[in-house]
């Protein structure tokens, strides 16, 4: 959540930006009438928007740049982080029901003399591994495996770390028939109930409900160049702009970058990446994640399970912005 003057100022700039963009959109819809010259206003607004962009740390198309970085094929994936952070990681597989879903990996990691349960979406890098990992798009059995591992972690008092990186849950007929919606929902419920500390890190693409399913955590951290979005910019553009090619516009509008989401109070902490992005230096990225994990776990482990659970639910209860009796609540 934004706090103090800094947050208020950010919000004011944000509101101004929104106002200007809406006006720009209105202008663009006006029919061209003889004698009416909109060019000046358009130019003025565009100028101010560029200024605001600089102030808020992004130029035009900055969100789209983040989308490309978040999807960068050399960006470290869950198993890269796991390999670098947790030597001796033991993968546990299967939902005990239908299948093992390679789009979600999970297992036990030795960590500072204790154990962690690490669960993450997993993409592939070459054609074979991409196909094997289904491009990081889980089916219901992936979510059910995640739940099984979370319950196992809870049984033995093991904290849970999730690594979020998926375009979204797989939109296929069989996945639907096996209850994709319910699988995501019950994973959310499982995370809401857990009485062990939970930390989620958005490491790449946080795509829609398929990503959120692993991110109902005590702490939600986000790597600087990751994105986290209600829908892919492409899908959003094709629905709202009726044109997938407007993905760049949608990327900006959706506020899916780490700094946007920090402003909105959606993530608790943004983790800086190595210069140029995590793909330039996997080891450094892993060190950054590990340090943040350490600090957050340290804090969480001081709390009683009840309080942790209460605060977790309290945090998600506060998500959202609405007006009530004239007041805007955030």
């Amino acid at each position, binding site marked *: 959540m934004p706090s103090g003057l800094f947050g208020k100022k950010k919000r004011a700039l944000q509101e101004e930006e929104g106002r200007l963009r809406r006006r720009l959109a209105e202008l663009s819809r006006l029919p061209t009438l003889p004698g009416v010259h909109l060019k000046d206003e358009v130019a003025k607004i565009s100028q101010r928007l560029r200024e605001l962009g600089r102030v808020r740390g992004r130029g035009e198309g900055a969100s789209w740049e983040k989308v490309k970085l978040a999807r960068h094929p050399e960006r470290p994936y869950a198993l890269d982080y796991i390999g670098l952070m947790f030597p001796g990681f033991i993968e546990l597989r299967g939902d005990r029901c239908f299948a093992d879903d390679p789009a979600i990996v999970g297992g036990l990691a030795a960590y500072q003399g204790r154990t962690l349960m690490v669960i993450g979406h997993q993409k592939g890098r070459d054609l074979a591994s991409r196909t094997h990992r289904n491009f990081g798009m889980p089916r219901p059995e992936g979510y059910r495996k995640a739940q099984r591992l979370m319950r196992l972690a809870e049984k033995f008092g093991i904290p849970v770390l999730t690594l979020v990186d998926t375009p979204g849950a797989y939109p296929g007929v069989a996945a639907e028939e096996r209850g994709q919606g319910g699988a995501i929902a019950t994973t959310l419920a499982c995370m809401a109930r857990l009485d062990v500390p939970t930390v989620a890190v958005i490491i790449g693409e946080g795509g829609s409900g398929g990503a959120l399913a692993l991110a109902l955590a005590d702490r939600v951290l986000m790597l600087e160049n990751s994105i986290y979005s209600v829908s892919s910019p492409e899908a959003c553009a094709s629905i709202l702009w009726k044109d997938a090619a407007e993905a760049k516009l949608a990327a900006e509008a959706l506020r899916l970058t780490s700094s946007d989401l920090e402003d909105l109070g959606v993530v608790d902490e943004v983790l800086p990446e190595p210069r140029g992005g995590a793909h330039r230096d996997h080891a450094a990225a892993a060190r950054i994640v590990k340090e943040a994990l350490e600090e957050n776990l340290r804090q969480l482990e001081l709390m009683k399970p009840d309080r942790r659970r209460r605060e977790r639910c309290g945090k*998600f209860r506060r998500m959202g912005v609405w007006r009530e009796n004239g007041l805007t609540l955030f």
Partner: protein
Amino acid sequence: MAQRGSVEISPRGGGEKRADSCPACGAPMDAEELAANLRVCPACGHHFPLSAGERIELLADQGSWEEIATELRSDDPLGFYDLRPYHERVEEAEYETGLSEAMLVGTARMHNMDVVLAVMDFRFMGGSMGSVVGERFWRAAELAAEARYPMVAVCASGGARMQEGMLSLLQMAKTTCAVEMMASVPVPFVATLTHPTTGGVMASFATLADVIVAEPGALLCFSGPRVIEQTVKEKLPEGFGRAESNLEHGQIDMIVPRRELKDRLVQVLGMLE
């Protein structure tokens, strides 16, 4: 905060445009006859959508509906603009439906049983779940947990409200926590899934209910048919995602025709109390 009295049904009767013939069987439709039949096609049983107002009329005992959280309204936290500004779309939905949002919540009696009702209306921006829907659901759940009333949710939703960005997606987490709040008492929570319930609602509170009831023929899925066809190019089987397919695939407890819905819900709740 509570506002006594029955809900305002929009002048047109609360539904979307009334068809001249049944889209399922082609039988010619008389609007009044249809309304008298609970908006179920007398010829083939096709269930036409109900507005939130009609739904409350169907379920709540006469005069028992008390809406809460009435003053909640959408804000525009992202300053969202696509082809039109978000606030304009909301205002249009308000005007066209006569509703304040895509979900109404409140207390009612069903056959004299006190319940909390949360009713969605697909006409309001596709029943999309934004901050107000999430907050209303939360307050409804809180009331249910505190008063120890069972909750009945009637779902109809296209998913998250994109115009609120991640804040809308997070309503899935928020409503899940709300369901957990009811479970910790526990108070019974029954969901009624109506046509269509998809996306974020299907992947949060709708499928977390103790008992899941659906109306016949309702499309119930996470990814909609169009997304599946366009994204992964799969051919959809006959009846894909419909209530009947969901029942066969173990995702819901029962399909209940609208005429029997209230009685059945009361029976279920009575047994869980």
